[in-house]
């Protein structure tokens, strides 16, 4: 069918144009084309979410207790009283905050530097973007070496660099101390994602017509004022997009942390704890409840954004 319509396209003359348009616009034709993906989504995304929700309300709390009876909110109240869960939850919040602020700032600075159209921009752009091409697991392994917590003459990785360049006081225990663990853990994530944020900001800057800047300059605005009052306000959709992308990456974080510290207690986040509860404890109901908590956290971030996007598109 696709082949036939292609042939038609070639033989088209002006008189036949409206006919073709009608065909494409017919609601049933369009529906037919998206049907496979609708079915796949219905089963593998929404069906599975429904199934997970069902599990989280059940009594299926171990491998041998095949008890799917309705338990109400029992699994969720269990989570609230579980110190491991609250520990993982607060770790995730710390990670998210540090990661998002860090990535935004460093991405913005890089974008500002490149935005002026310096020489070799293409080179810098790809250099900054490059970390994104590395998988979290491979990166985790190398950052585990870099962030080794040994000090003094036993130091390796970053601590050794600090030691050698006379900044010994900066040596620290990285992700192995209870207080600082998530700050250290956010470092590799920032390193990886800031290039991407830079690219998004850069695209945002390039989307603003030069006339506006010129007009502002003619009116005698300083460079700082141009950014503050002309450019940044126009970047707010870009800014929002970046927040959403970073936010949902951060909530789901698993591989980076597993790659660096495996299932270690100090750096445990929700996704790691969920994995442990499902596969080690085989407490399927509780694991499903943790999965739903993660899903809700992401939904809180993403759904308002989708509503906003839909509204602005309708307005257009």
């Amino acid at each position: 069918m696709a082949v036939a319509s292609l042939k038609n396209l070639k033989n088209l003359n002006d008189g036949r144009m409206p006919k073709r348009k009608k065909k494409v616009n017919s609601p049933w034709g369009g529906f037919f084309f998206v049907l496979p993906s609708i079915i796949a989504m219905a089963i593998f995304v929404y069906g599975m979410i429904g199934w997970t929700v069902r599990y989280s309300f059940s009594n299926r709390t171990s491998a041998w207790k095949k008890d799917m009876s309705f338990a109400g909110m029992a699994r969720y109240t269990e989570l609230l009283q579980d110190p491991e869960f609250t520990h993982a939850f607060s770790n995730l919040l710390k990670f998210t905050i540090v990661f998002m602020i860090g990535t935004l700032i460093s991405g913005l600075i890089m974008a500002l530097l490149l935005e002026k159209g310096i020489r070799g921009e293409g080179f810098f752009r790809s250099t900054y973007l490059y970390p994104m091409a590395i998988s979290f697991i491979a990166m985790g392994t190398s950052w585990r070496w870099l962030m080794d917590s040994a000090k003094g003459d036993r130091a390796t990785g970053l601590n050794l660099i600090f030691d050698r360049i006379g900044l010994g006081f900066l040596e620290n225990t990285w992700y192995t101390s209870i207080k600082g663990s998530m700050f250290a853990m956010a470092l590799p994530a920032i390193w990886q994602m800031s290039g991407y944020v830079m690219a998004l900001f850069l695209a945002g800057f390039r989307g603003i017509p030069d006339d506006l800047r010129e007009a502002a300059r003619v009116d005698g605005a300083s460079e700082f004022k141009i950014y503050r009052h002309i450019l940044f306000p126009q970047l707010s959709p870009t800014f929002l997009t970046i927040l959403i992308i970073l936010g949902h990456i951060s909530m789901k974080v698993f591989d980076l942390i597993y790659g660096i510290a495996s299932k270690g207690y100090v750096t445990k986040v929700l996704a790691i704890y969920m994995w442990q509860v499902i596969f080690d404890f085989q407490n399927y109901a509780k694991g499903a409840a943790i999965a739903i908590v993660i899903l809700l956290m992401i939904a809180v971030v993403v759904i308002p954004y989708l509503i906003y996007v839909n509204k602005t598109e309708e307005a257009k």
Partner: protein
Amino acid sequence: MLKKSKLVVALAAVALVASTAPAAPAAGSLEIFTWWASGGEAAGLEGMTTEFTKQNPDTEFVNAAVAGAAGTNAKGVLVSRMEAGNPPDTFQAHAGAELSSYVKAKQIEDLTSLYKSEGWDKVFPADLIKTLTTKGKIYSVPVNIHRANVLWWNPAAAKKAGITSAPTSLDGMIADLAKFKKAGIDGIALAGQGDWAIAHLFDYVLLASMGPDKFNGLWNGKTKWNKKDVKTAIKKFAKILSYGNSSKSLDWPDAGKLVTEGKAGYFIMGDWASSQWQSEGLKLGKDYTWAPGPGTSGIYQWLSDSFTLPVGAPNREAGIAWLKVAGSLAGQDAFNPKKGSIAVRTDSDPKLYDSYLKAAMKSWKVDRLVGSTVHGVNYGNAGMSAYNSVVGKFYAGNAKDKKGFAKGLVAAYKTNKAA
């Protein structure tokens, strides 16, 4: 026309991919699930495989290995396969309580009759058979024995610290740690990566500090976790940790390297450390040496890899044939010298093994047998994971929160009972 033929080619390609995809293994094959994928472990498995194909030339051998992390990754895959009703013909698991969740879920078969027909009930040590038996039934066939309570050290570094012989008590060991420190060497090598190796050390300290009877009572509720004995052990454990290396993120091979390079004094680790070092070209007796964990001589804290027969195995016959090889003298002697462990059978030939393993074989026959918690003997998967996590938390907090640690250990015991 051209496009049509392209479509056909594409369809054919899809069909080809679909038909070669590893769906259910064909009849006459044995699918075995292990986490042995490299080094001595893989070599040992290959030895046993050769023995299997010699006896069963018509059965194709399919190795579904999932590498890494002392089997924690493999367990994740296995759990989902078992839950989906798609088990392999046999899978590797630590012998002991680690199997309890499979037993309770009725996912593995009772093998007691195989023990009788193959005579394993006579050649495996009685203490071991007792531990393997739950409610009169045995569910797995152990292929090897590792010892967990071994003290490793470097003779040259010890000489520098003025230590000439291994300590014989826990307190003696702590005194030695101070001597190492004085000589500018870290007292003990600690591997903080993933918590389990620190929990392994704690497991030894518990055993050495309270003795085997009370230690065994911890896992069945006869010894209380919130009493004085555990508190004393925690105090000693904290003292030992204070002499450790400053990096808290080492994997166990890296921590072991501190010892063989003379940067750390003692190392409490299972005897797989020895085969690791030998594969790096180090010599037993010269570059490193061993002693029973101080205060636990005459006690063999064991762990064992074993194979099972899942309920609903696609090729049950092949699974049973594999178990027979795994328990046989030929199978165990093909596997163990390469893996760096000793045979479960007491009639194995000592000539095949190195000097450490020969000594271990002697102890295995006469010592009191006690299980390892971190390696699946005393706790099921849930309890084990909780135990590791609690020790990891204590270690991460610089061994300060002794009360919280004791509470966590009680909670881990409860987690194990509930799972």
